[in-house]
């Protein structure tokens, strides 16, 4: 299952460095201002640790938050160019945050990520305005493609 998923997603893997070839180090906040900010909201620590590094390898600025509430309170909402959002979380869920952002008129493209789900969920969330949905585990190329799509939409 896992290997099948990887193989399937690796086919659409994007060439690395294609979007921001000049970005080397993500720690440099001065540079990061010029880079689009991708925010991550996930209650899982593994994702919060690993995903920013990969995103910086892609050339984005990245910030991780452990809950929807933390993200809403962070002041990063307005800067965020793309939101990578977990669906099932304690407290406010991913779809609920999506609604909340809609209410706040914050049109941030959202790529949902989820540990469980099926095509019906994908269809429904996409219908409701999601830029993409990735089932965990997802490949780096699938992630990059989804983010590119999201940024293009916005």
């Amino acid at each position, binding site marked *: 299952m896992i290997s099948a998923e990887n193989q399937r997603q690796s086919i659409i893997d994007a060439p690395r460095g294609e979007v921001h070839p000049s970005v080397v180090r993500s720690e440099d906040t001065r540079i990061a201002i010029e880079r689009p900010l991708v925010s991550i909201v996930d209650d*899982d620590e593994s994702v919060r640790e690993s995903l920013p590094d990969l995103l910086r390898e892609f050339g984005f600025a990245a910030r991780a938050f452990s809950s929807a509430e933390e993200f809403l309170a962070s002041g990063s909402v307005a800067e965020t160019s793309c939101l990578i959002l977990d669906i099932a979380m304690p407290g406010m869920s991913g779809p609920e945050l999506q609604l909340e952002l809609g209410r706040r008129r914050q049109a941030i493209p959202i790529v949902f990520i989820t*540990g469980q789900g099926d095509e019906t969920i994908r269809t429904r969330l996409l219908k409701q305005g999601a830029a993409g949905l990735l089932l965990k585990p997802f*490949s780096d190329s699938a992630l990059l493609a989804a983010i590119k799509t999201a940024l293009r939409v916005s």
Partner: protein
Amino acid sequence: MESMAEPDKSRNDSSLETPIPVGAVPLESILCTEELSRRPSRPPDYQKENHALVELTSALADSPSTIFQTLADTIQEITQCDSAGLSLLTKDGKSPHVEGKRFYWPAIAGMWNPHVGGGTPRNFGPCGDVLDQNRTLLFSHFERRYPYLVPVNPAAEECLLVPFYVAGNAVGTIWAIMHTGRRKFDGEDNRVMASLGKFASSAYQALVHIENLKVQVTEREKAEAEVRELASGLEAKVRRLVEANVVGIVIFTLEGAIIDANEAFLQMVQYDRDDLASGRMRWTDLTPAECRDRDERPIAELKASGVFQPFEKEYLRKDGTRVPVLLGGTLFEGAGNEGVAFILDLSEQKRAERSLRRSEAFLVEGQRLGQIGSYSWRVATGEITWSEQLYRIYEFEIGVPVTFDLIRTRVHPDDLTLYEKMVEQAANGGKDFEWQYRLMMPDRSIKHLQAVARATRDQDGQLEYIAAIQDVTARRLSEEARDKATSELAHVASMMSLGTLAASIAHEVNQPLAGIVTNAATCQRMLAATPPNIDGALETVRRTIRDANRASQVITRLRALFNRRQIATESVDLNEATREVIALSLNGLQRNEVLVRLELADNLPPVTGDRILLQQVVLNLLRNGSEAMSAVHDRPRLLLIRTDRDEGDRVRLSVKDAGVGFEPQAADSLFENFHTTKNEGMGIGLSVSRSIIESHQGRLWAEKNDGPGSTFSFSIPCRREADLPSNDTALVACAPSGRDTA
């Protein structure tokens, strides 16, 4: 004379008259009365006459029974005749009686003395002739006219007959007879006889009076004897009654006094002789206040008819307790307001009735609670009655007298204070009560008891508790076991509910997998950079190893969870399974003020499947319905759970709520994950439920009610067609992942 006289005596009244024989000589031919005045009269001997009269008078006073004989002797002595006697008119020819049919001879002196007791007819004889003519007559050979006198020997040459009278009526004659001609009666005889006739009258009256007196005395004596006999019989009966002390006897007045009473009555009311003698005892005081009105009827009866119908009442004993009695009585005749009452002590009967009632009450309470012990407790007397079962529960020998001290030895030390408080409240309260307490037996084992007591009033109006006590130890243990099972199931329900399980499996496993993949990709990019970011790559490798271990642990944990119970294929009684779910979730339902109504079909065929999973579905539907009604305040939060046979050998279960319902176009999405109309939860319950039902080859659907709310139903076949490849999400998600990752 004998032959004549005897038959006469035996005659009855109607034959006492003697027919006058044809050819009898005329009366004139036997009379010679005028001769008396013609014959020379001898000189009167007054001294002799006076002497005789004095003797007669004293004889009359001394020995009235022989006065007639004395008179006859006197006549003979004074007249110097051969025979002398009396004839008395009688009815039966024997007893002296006025206006009789015959004369009889009570006394005769001289030669005719042997003929005493004989006599002559009234209508045809010398005495009758004398009375008819109302004067003294002298007969000569009267047997010539009266043939019945022929045999009376010796024959009467002359007979002087003098009538005597009482109150103007002739009652008899005195007579003197000469059997030979040696002397003839003369005028002096006539005078003396007339004088003696007056005496005879007095004597006769005296005798009649004496006879009457005798009769009266006899009759009175007879009556007295009868009365005495009667009285002694009655007395004996009464005495037996009194001595037997079976019946209380009271002499009373209508006004309330008790004049006398027997021992039985005194014992009944527990007074003594001194109380009685002092006059302190009044039946009005012995009567309880509420019974006094009831006494008015018998008192009215007494006044009207002298007796009253027996009736039941109660008397107060000296100590204030009550004795039930049956009372009957009568007024003494002529005694005005006094009477006698008979009182029967009904205590034994009442006790028997009461114990019967008590045993009935025991039975009723017993049936109510099941196999239980019961007791009655009369608070005033402290009398405690236990059923055998209660002795067994307390493990006391059956029949030992029960006291609170004894009971206290068994009550659990921790419950002793509570117990004594309960007893105290019960003694003062008079209300029904229920409570639970524990016993500690000699072997230190614990028993849990549940008591239900009803307060009643007994015959005396005294407080009496009738209680049922159940040994609920076994139930308590099973409750504890059930509570444990409940918490286990609750754990399973929350942790392992299929939806949660599937979600948590996917989540728990996919999270670390996502980390692994991402770190691997990052590592690859860091190493491929120029120059390669070695430190960063090492960090990602460290994370990758950590996440891989984490995924492995998740699988191990989930597997352990699964091993705790196997998903089974068994025969499931859906009604029973549903009842269990409701029993388990009743608390939560009650907390949400949900009314549950069950309409479970009889004879519902069992279905084949996994009991726990099906119960999970029922639980999800119950929660779903309950939560859908949480905002309902204007109508009952009614949840109707119904089972039916469905078409095609299927069984259907539906849960109908009165909640907010759903929009018709949303019916399809209800069962999708995350679809929820609720604030809590992620809305995966219905999705999971549908998966379970589909794995049972059934179908789960929702309908909008005509009224408020919606109905969720599932229908599953009674028999599974074959062992399908399991499409159980949990297994699919878990087992292959386990193999791949372990």
